[in-house]
Every structure is written in C-alpha cells, then in structure tokens.
C-alpha cells in the first residue's frame, strides 16, 4: 500500500514536470522533432548499450525553448535549431560536451561544423543532427497550368506580386516563422539577410505586404498535407518536409506531383543540433547516445529514412542514391555557396521583427 501511494505521488510529480522516468539509471530521455528518426535506431541503441531510450517529440523551436528556459525538463538530449541554440547557449542552458566520450566526433563534416560554429563557437555544446534549406514546394501540374513559364527556381515566384497573384485562387501557404521569412524577403531585394539593422528590416515589410493578399495561410506544418493532397499550389517550406509531401503524394498515387526547389538567389540554411541540458539527469547516457548517433551507419540510416541531409561526412557513402544524389537534399557545391545563415536577433530587434510579422499577417 505504501509503495502504491509512493508511486502515485511520483507519477503525479512527473506528470507535472512533463518528463519521464527518473529513478532508473539505464535511461536516456530524448526530446526531438516529430517524424525525425528511424525508430529502429532507438531499438538498436538499447540492444547495444542496455540503455532505454525514452523518446518524446515537439514540433516547434518555440515550445522547446520555453521548456528549456523554464528549466528542470528532465531531458538528456534535445535538438534545437541553430539560432535558437545560440541564444540558449548564451542563456546557460547547456553543458559543454565531453569530447573525450565522443569517439565518433571524427566522422563529422567540416563544411557543416564550420557553419554551426557561428551559433556554437568551437561546437562546444552541440553536434549537428540534420540540416536543410528553406525553399519553395510546389504542385508541378497546377503551377504549369496557370503559368507555363513560372520561375519555380526563384524567389520571384513568391515575392513578385504580379506572379504570385496568378496562384492566389489555387492556394499559397507560407511558413509562420518571422525569423526565416524576413531574411528571405531581404535576400530577395539584395539586402543582407542576416541584418539586425531596424532600417534594413523595415524594408522587408513592403516586400511581404505586397504579396500578403495572395497568401492563404501562414503555418509551419499544415503545408505537408496540403501539398500532398493537392489542396494548394505553392508553399514556402522546409526541404525535408516538402520532400515528405512529395513522397506521400507519390505513395497515394493521386496524380499530384510535388517538387522542391532551392531558389537561385539563395536560401536559408538551417541546422538542427543535438545538445545536453545542464540539468540533464543522465548526462553520461546522453553522451553515449550522441556518440551512437554520430556513427556513420546510424546517421545514414536516419537520413535515408527522413530525407534530410546530415552533418556526418563518413555516412555519405552509405546513403541511398535518392538521398545523396538529390540536389534538393544535398545541394551542389555551387548552390551551397548561395545559401545563407541567420544569427539570432537581439531581443529589441526580435520584438520589431515579430511586430512586423503580426502586422503583415493581420492586414487584409
């Protein structure tokens, strides 16, 4: 009876903190993006090490950051994106990685680690899990019907009001992410997408306002289904998500053909990084998990499953041809040079950007 009361109390406490099993040592609590791993990887890890993986998912950086800043999440491994990671590192949320425990660090790809060092100097707190671009997903047939010579490989398709207006009746979605769309608009008009200057940022407003009437919805995940079902013509979205929509449509064999393009003007390159919170209850196991993920065969398995590029050079020879050979996933050397990254906005500027975004969205 006493035991029962105790466990009920413990359960109530855990439910409150939103975390998992604490007591047992052989556990690692992982908090990753939804639909972002081949689940057999987790089973393999457990078989090999005897450590149970308690896997939980989120679908927005904002939710993850709010939990991390509140503290006491109980998670051992979390996966924030670059700019978010940078701010969280500054806030002192993470513990530095003990690289002596990460023997597979040598497999990482310097092309990626050089870039992630912008967010996490020396990659002291994180390793790259996946990376990708923010570009254009479109319904090949419907776009061609409305405009045979549509510039599908250019931001003109989105930011030129005259062109976008042709697709308004068919449905245009845009990511509800101001810190990705404002840089994209700035990049389109030839300004520095990474600018924190309020005067430069203000210029993005006019660009976005001009196309606002033709955008049906701002949302960061609904476009996957909408594209796959053929409900919409165009969506500004994340590479892997659009490719997922492409595969879903192909599987459903519903006559919908979805394509992804990285615009020639350049696109945002983002990185999802694995890190260990300072208050992680099983930091030792977290290191083991991260080291396991960095094994070439494991990383290749993950990429082959989710259709995102990874930051692991040694894994590349193990990738399927439709992953490594797809320039939408692994851009060509030349295309890679046009990609840009975005540092986190300072708080005051962040408010201006969000304000601009809200104003633009609510004007009709």
């Amino acid at each position: 009876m006493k035991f029962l009361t105790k466990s009920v109390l413990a359960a109530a406490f855990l439910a409150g903190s939103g975390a998992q099993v604490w007591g047992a040592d052989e556990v690692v609590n992982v908090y990753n993006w939804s639909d972002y791993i081949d689940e057999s990887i987790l089973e393999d890890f457990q078989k090999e090490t005897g450590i149970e993986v308690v896997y939980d998912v989120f679908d927005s950086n904002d939710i993850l950051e709010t939990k991390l800043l509140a503290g006491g999440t109980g998670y051992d491994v979390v996966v924030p994106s670059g700019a978010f990671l940078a701010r969280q590192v500054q806030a002192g949320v993470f513990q530095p990685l003990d690289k002596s425990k990460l023997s597979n660090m040598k497999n990482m790809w310097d092309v990626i680690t050089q870039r992630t060092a912008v967010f996490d100097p020396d990659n002291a707190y994180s390793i790259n899990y996946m990376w990708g671009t923010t570009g254009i997903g479109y319904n090949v047939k419907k776009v061609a019907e409305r405009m045979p010579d549509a510039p599908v490989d250019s931001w003109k398709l989105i930011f030129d009001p005259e062109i976008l207006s042709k697709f308004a009746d068919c449905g245009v979605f845009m990511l509800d992410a101001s810190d990705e769309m404002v840089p994209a608009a700035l990049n389109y008009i030839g300004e520095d997408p990474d600018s924190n200057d309020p005067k430069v940022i203000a210029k993005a407003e006019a660009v976005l306002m001009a196309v606002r009437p033709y955008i049906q919805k701002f949302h960061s995940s609904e476009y996957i289904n909408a594209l796959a079902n053929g409900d919409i013509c165009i969506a500004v979205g994340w590479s892997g998500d659009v490719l997922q929509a492409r595969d879903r449509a192909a599987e459903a064999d519903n006559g919908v053909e979805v394509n992804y393009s990285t615009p020639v003007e350049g696109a945002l390159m983002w990185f999802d990084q694995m890190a260990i919170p300072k208050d992680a209850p099983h930091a030792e196991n977290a290191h083991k998990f991260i080291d396991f993920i960095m094994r070439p065969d494991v990383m290749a398995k993950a990429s082959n499953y989710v259709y995102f590029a990874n930051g692991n050079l040694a894994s590349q020879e193990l990738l399927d041809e439709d992953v490594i050979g797809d320039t939408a996933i692994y851009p060509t050397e030349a295309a890679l040079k046009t990609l840009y990254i975005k540092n986190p906005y300072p708080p005051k500027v962040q408010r201006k950007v969000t304000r601009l975004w809200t104003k633009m969205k609510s004007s009709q």
Partner: protein
Amino acid sequence: MSQKPREGKRSQVEYLDARSGEGTAGALEELHKQLLLLPPYRWLCSAIAGSGISPRGLLISTPYIWLLLFFLAPFLIVLKISFSEYAISQPPYTALFELVDDIYVQIKLNLENYQLLFEDDLYWRAYLNSVKIAGISTILTLMVGYPLAYGMTRAPQRWRLALLMLVILPFWTSFLIRVYAWIGILKKEGLLNLLLINLGIIDQPLTIMNTDTAVYIGIIYSYLPFMVLPLYASLEKMDDTLLEAAADLGSRPIKTFWQITFRLSLPGVIAGCFLVFIPALGEFVIPDLLGGSGTLMIGKTLWAEFFSNRDWPLSSAVAVVLLLILVIPIVAFQKLQEKDKAA
C-alpha cells in the same frame, strides 16, 4: 400589477435563506465529522489543534485557502514577472529583488512593459477586438441558449433529464477534437459547403474557414452549455402560478414573458453571460484553429509574446491587464447588485 407576485416570491426566498441559516452550524458540524474520516483532514486538524484555530474555522476558510493558493499566488508570480526585464538567461527575465550588502533588499521595478502596452496600438486593438468578439458571441450564445433552456423547462418532466444529458454530452469528447471537427465542416470542400451546393442554395463555396465568422461559430458552439445550464437552473425554479396570475389579470403573453419570465431568469442570464464572456475573451484555441491569420485576439497576442518573442515580462503584463479588464466589470456589477439589494 405584475410587481406584486415578484415581491411575494422574494419574501419566500428570504424565508428559505433564513431557515437554512439556522441549519448552517449543524451542517458544518456534520461535514466536519464526515471529513474526519479522511486522513489528510485529520492530520490537518490535529496539526492546528494547538494553534487556537477551530476545525469549523478551518472548514470555512478552505475556499479562501484554495483561492490564495491557486489564484492569488500565481497572479502575484505573474505580476512579479511583469515588472522585470527580458534577459537571455534561465529563466528569461531579470530578478526583481536583489540582496545588497547582505542587509538591504533592492527592488527594481521595470514599468517599460506596461508603457509599451499603451504605446503600441497592436495590444489595444487586440484587447478591443477580443472584447468585441467575446461580447458579440455572448449575445449570440444567449439568443441561441435562451430558447433552448426555455424549451427544456417546458418539456414534460420525464424528458428533462435526457435533454439535460444531451446538453452535457459533448463534454465527453475532447474540446480540441470538437473544434477540429469544425474545420472539416467549415472548410471550402467541407460538409457545409457540400450540403449547400447540393441543395442548390449556393453555387460558389462560401469562405467561412479562417475568418471571424468561423471564430464566432466556434465560440457559440463550445460555450453553449455554459449558457444553457444556468438559464435552465433559474427557469426551472420559476413558479408557474405567476404566469397564470398574469394571464388572469389580462397580460399578453409577450408582456408576461418580458416582465415575469425574463426578469426572474435574470440571475441565470447574468451567470450564463459571465461564464461565456470571460473565457471567450482570453480564448486562444478557437481563433488559432478556426480564425485566419488576420484574426487579432489577445490570447493569440499573448501566445506570440510568450513563445515567438520569448518575452515573459511583456506577456505577463498583457495577462495582468487582461485580468484587470475582466475584474473591473465584475466588481462594478457586484456593487450594482448590492445597491439593488439595499434599495
């Protein structure tokens, strides 16, 4: 003429109140005995035994302790955060109190958040729009709910319980799922448009989804039971002989309805309106799922401040002001009622 029966009713109620007052002490004693069977209560009683607090006092103060713990304490925490400053740290705001030289407590109040609320018209527009949407939906819910509740009380006695169950039944499904279901009904290729087109009423699908209209529909649907239940409770208690008396005295049905039925149901109307208006004002889920990107409501603004801007102090200030907006009319209303009673 119709004033008289009302007075008769009131004195009857007062009589009942007085009588139940006599029994209060006995009932409390009984409740105390019952509660003693529960270990936590017993421990609490023995813990305070030496402190001069009677178990009866404890029982009476329970609601106050509850309010203190679950309303006042969280509010004070939010209030405290609203006076701090955003910082890149964990938690993401500066400390309000600081110990200087180990003896002085330095308090740093930052009023900037409130200043910003007044300066930036976004917040005011969001507040006003929320009041507008909540107000209109409350009136519409009343217009839908009143005939429903009235019909229920007029139904034969044996049906009433079943009808009441039907009103409560939707609560057995998750609120979120019910709101999601409306997406399937209201969207362009949704059930409603399909039905209207097949009936030949319209030939172009209506755009309801992602507009304010969809938000109104969502709020009215979700909060209807909160309106119907208090209305039903007050209408059911009504003395039917009053209506007969009014008819005997030559009052027309419409006049009788306004002067007797509606007036006697006023407490129910007011309770129902508060139960709908207050949650609708801060509603987040319905405008987020059914409303368009252009639907500006304070709940969504609060969410954006908290999650997108990560500005806990500012979003706390928004929440405090929201609470004030809600508390002022409630207090004013109570004062008005007290005056009414005194008169």
